[in-house]
């Protein structure tokens, strides 16, 4: 950041200031600064009433990591849920993107639109909708019972499976979009060339389409993995709050118990995990995965 600023001054580039200037300032003041504050607070000791004591210590981290706290377990659980969510999203999202891109014809825009639109509705409304559908007894259960597909209502709500289901429901569109973009970005003559060189459609898919959409896949993975990892509303509303993810613990410490320093340490640990995972994703997916985000 500093380097960028100095450089800007030195060059006094006429166009640089009005274009990247605002976002630099914005990011510095409203992204870096708050994160820095959180990191700083995480190294302060906590008083008995939750107040921050003016004393530097690693106490919070020690308590969290080695003090028998539930937090590391919650983080691992979150990663696990996010990973499963991610894989299922990929399993549904890739075929969807592929289908739209290949068979969409002139309805491509509409079909894509149909994927994105549900994500435009309010988060809480969507969770409520899902809850109403899969409830016990619920509409889905009634439907399946009437069809005779099941003999007794299945209980999906309030289980870890429900949490994963909710996460998939919320984040699926964000998997489809980047994959679709990278599928559309493939030069069609490459596909033709591979057919021409003797590749059957299946082989073509494996050797050309899949490797060329790697960026989209990892971009989508980043876009679904991170929010799923940090989610706290889905376990709260659809998981019956029986099992906590890392986000719930952070919210619990920050809001319910008012232990800001402790919550900051938790946030730092979770953020570090996330950054590490993003790094791995970008390394695996190449530069393109970053570009395909959004």
């Amino acid at each position, binding site marked *: 950041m500093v380097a960028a600023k100095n450089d800007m001054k030195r060059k006094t580039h006429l166009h640089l200031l009005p274009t990247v200037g605002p976002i630099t300032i914005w990011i510095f003041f409203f992204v870096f600064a708050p994160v820095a504050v959180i990191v700083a607070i995480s190294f302060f000791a906590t008083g*008995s*009433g*939750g107040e921050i004591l003016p004393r530097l210590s690693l106490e919070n981290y020690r308590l969290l990591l080695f003090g028998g*706290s*539930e937090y590391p*377990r*919650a983080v691992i*659980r979150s990663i696990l849920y996010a990973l499963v969510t991610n894989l299922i999203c990929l399993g549904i999202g890739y075929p969807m993107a592929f289908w739209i891109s290949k068979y969409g014809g002139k309805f491509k*825009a*509409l079909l894509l*639109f149909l994927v994105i639109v549900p994500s435009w509705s309010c988060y809480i409304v969507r969770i409520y909708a899902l*809850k*109403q559908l899969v*409830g*016990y*007894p*619920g509409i889905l259960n009634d439907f399946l019972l009437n069809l005779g597909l099941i003999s007794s209502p299945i*209980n999906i*709500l*309030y289980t870890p499976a429900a949490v994963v289901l909710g996460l998939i429901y919320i984040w699926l569109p964000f998997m489809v979009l980047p994959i679709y973009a990278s599928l559309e970005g493939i030069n069609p003559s490459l596909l033709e060339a591979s057919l021409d060189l003797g590749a059957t459609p299946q082989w073509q898919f494996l050797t050309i389409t899949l490797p060329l959409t790697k960026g989209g896949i990892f971009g989508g993975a980043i876009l679904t993995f991170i929010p799923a990892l940090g989610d706290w509303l889905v376990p*709260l*509303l659809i*998981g*019956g*709050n*029986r*099992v*906590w993810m890392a986000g*719930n*613990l952070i919210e*619990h410490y*920050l*809001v*319910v*118990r*008012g232990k*800001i320093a402790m919550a900051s340490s938790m946030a730092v640990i979770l953020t570090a995990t996330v950054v590490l995972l993003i790094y791995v994703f970008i390394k695996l997916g190449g530069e393109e995965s970053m570009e395909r985000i959004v």
Partner: protein
Amino acid sequence: MLKLVENRKTWVFIGGLIFALAVSFMGSGLVGSAQAKTYKQYVASLPDGCQPVPRECFEQAVAGKTFAMYDWAAWWPEELYKGFEKEFGIKIVRDNYPNLDEALAKFRLNPKTPYDFWLTNPKSVWYMKNWKLLETVNHDWIPNVNRYLAGDVKEASWDKGYNYTVLTTLGYDAYVINKNFINKDDSRIPSWKFLFEGWDVYKDRLVMRNEMNRVIGNTLKYLGYSLNSTNPKELKEAEDVLVRLKPHIMAFNSWPKRAVMAGEVWIVEGVVHDYLSLGKLAGPENPFVPCYPPKGCLLSPMLVVMPKGGNNPAACHLFLNYLYRPDNFATLINGVAYGHGHTGVNGLIKEKVVKWMTPPEAGYREKCEVLLPPAFTGQGEKLRAAIWEKLKK
């Protein structure tokens, strides 16, 4: 599609429309809605047995123009707010919190938040008092409260000295069963034993509150201890009970009403009045049966406090005085069916609401406990939080 999305005019039009709509509405919202009464008109219009606030309070409140409230969404009847706005021409700006802890955290981080009125619980009152963030109540400005609020709840354990709070409703936090699904003749029923040991009947059909102090407190009550206990041994026992119970709990849900109504949940731990008043929507016969364990339960008073930093504390007094007018208070109680400490509304409450809001046994309130500092500070809080974390894995 793309044509439409890329058409500049479409978006400028939609954007402009939304913006204009929002701005005009916000603008109109700030201007007082109705014609305000003068003090004389106000005094003259009061029903029998009600007293006006002093002129000083009235004038300050009206001059303030707006009144910032912080409470639950869609709980108290809307008429109360509408009536107040109409009568005094003071615009109510209402904010809603999803839970009281969240609201308290806001005050902790941002001490001088300009709310004039906050509907909250004893825990918040204790913390706010400790942080010196509460205004004292001016008793000269709330003659109706002085007249009608029962003496025994005026100066109660949550506000020794009766300086900072005014009680509105009193909830009994026990449990409710749905008699459509549960055999009402089970001898264990009104006792805590049924809630904590009746697995044979209600496996996976139980919902508990998502608040550690309430759940753990009621568990302690079941074991026969004080719900404010800080004794590690007693808390350990409570933990064992909850760990044993957890596989049979459907959810720790702060959104149980829909599930209860849909028949997903048969037993619900929580404020009983909520479900009883809900039952009137369930059909001709109310399927919900309140269970008040003989050992007593958690009593949860909803208290009005005035945070420091409010712009119009006079309006809060005016509102409290307005609320404690018997007709208005009856509207409140008929709407929420909670217990209360108002001594002048007895004839105005509907018969069935009386049934929903009072425990069957006279003097039951004395057996109940309010959450007090030992439970949510220091050692007590730490032990409870540890239990809670363990339960959520």
